[in-house]
């Protein structure tokens, strides 16, 4: 193949890339929202053979309803943690409702509406374990979390003498916990409650209930889209004031005996 031909192919590829990068610029279709959620988080965002369940899904459906999209018109798209900013930036999703903590680093890439929930890092232990009463009773215990997650980093930093096992997903940690390979699983209390509320785990696991961090869950959207942000914020306010918020919490995380921590329900911040 001649260099000219190769050059032409490279140029065509570059053009295609730049075109796809611009593709996200079109305005949001409020009648058919594309929403990024987690597909593998019981109690929050779970894909059960095409049926979506969880707190985040209920919140997303409510917000979409207020914005003008009926439940059956919503397209749910999987938004793994590492891809959330890219999905929003390229316009593949309009909103992300996926245990998305508002942080300064993320605010540089995307805008947030909310918070709609305040979670905190907590511990999940076996129901018959009485030795772990909170983060201060962890000496000599083995903890489990996900490689690279904020929770794992926080444990390493705050409790350096605790042994930390890391896996790729929380489900593997739950397996290790049930098999008594680790003593506790640590991450946001909402995620923990979701696992404790799973039918297979009810009665076997419990959340300690001593959160030692604050995570503000927000709805991620395209940076600088104030109009959409304000609409979503109003929807969150309405959801909290008309009792739907409490209903969603009870329905999805209630079976674990989970009560939302201090500061809940939160007051959404103004969009900027």
């Amino acid at each position, binding site marked *: 193949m001649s260099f000219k031909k190769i050059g032409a192919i490279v140029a065509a590829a570059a053009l295609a890339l730049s075109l796809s990068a611009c593709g996200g610029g079109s305005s949001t279709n409020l009648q058919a929202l594309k929403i990024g959620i987690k597909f593998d988080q019981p109690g929050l965002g779970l894909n059960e053979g095409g049926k979506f369940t969880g707190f985040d899904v209920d919140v997303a459906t409510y917000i979409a309803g207020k914005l003008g999209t009926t439940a059956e018109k919503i397209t749910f798209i999987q938004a793994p*943690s*590492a*891809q*959330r*900013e*890219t999905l929003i930036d390229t316009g593949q999703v309009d909103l992300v409702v996926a245990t998305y903590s508002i942080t300064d*680093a*993320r605010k*540089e*890439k995307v805008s947030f509406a909310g918070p709609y929930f305040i979670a905190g890092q907590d511990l999940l232990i076996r129901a018959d374990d009485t030795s772990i009463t909170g983060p201060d009773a962890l000496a000599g215990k*083995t903890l489990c979390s996900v*490689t*690279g*997650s*904020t929770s794992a*980093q926080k444990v390493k930093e705050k409790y350096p003498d605790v*042994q*930390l*096992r*890391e*896996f*790729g997903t929380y489900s*593997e940690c739950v*397996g*290790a916990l049930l*098999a*008594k*390979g*680790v003593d506790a699983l640590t991450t946001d209390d909402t995620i923990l409650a979701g696992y404790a509320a799973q039918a297979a785990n009810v009665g076997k696991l419990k959340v300690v209930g001593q959160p030692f961090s604050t995570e503000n869950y927000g709805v991620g959207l395209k940076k600088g889209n104030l109009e959409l942000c304000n609409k979503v914020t109003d929807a969150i306010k309405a959801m909290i004031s008309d009792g739907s918020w409490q209903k969603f919490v009870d329905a999805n995380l209630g079976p674990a005996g989970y009560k939302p921590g201090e500061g809940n329900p939160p007051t959404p911040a103004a969009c900027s």
Partner: protein
Amino acid sequence: MGEILARYDFVGAFWLTIQLSFWSALGALMIGTVLAVLRVSPVPVLRLLGTAYVNLIRNTPLTLLMVSSILGLSLILGLRLSNDVKTDAFLWAIVMLSVYHAAFVCEALRSGVNTIPAGQAEAARAIGLTFNQSLTEVLLPQAFRGSIAPLGSTLIALIKNSTVASVIGVSEAAGLMATIVENETGGVPVFFVFALGFVVLTLPLGVLFTSLSRRLAVKR
């Protein structure tokens, strides 16, 4: 991008990748050689054993092997390789990478053995060499020299596959990438820098093995 990398131990993570790859390559070469010997041995039971190992391990996803080593062997059966959780994961990662790639090393070597004309093995036996002697003096040396290129490909695959170790918490390059993406948000530059790191590791190896395979080829 530069200041992000300055805040994280980029070099340390890749150093762990190199350590992981080095020990696993050594382990894979040893197990793989034994397997290759089994597969060309005149004893049917040993051949069956070698074939069964290769077919079982080669067709199992590495992630599955990795996770089952910790969840199944270390936690449930209590086969701890170290009391320290980090070292335990590191050692299990080496074991599983070795076990997995041994199957590919075995097949590379076996293809090397197959390049040797059957007459040589017959000649070796005819002059009175035992199976062991003909193997170590005639067959294996030529097999290694004939399979340098596929062995090189297996090594490169092993280095890239070492990222799978992050699923059991070995904080090598892919583990660090997960951390950076979590803290600084994901972006193409982050992935690009880590991809570049692997290219720097593997590209010279590819060149080296190509030249070795040319220089060491058995002239027949």
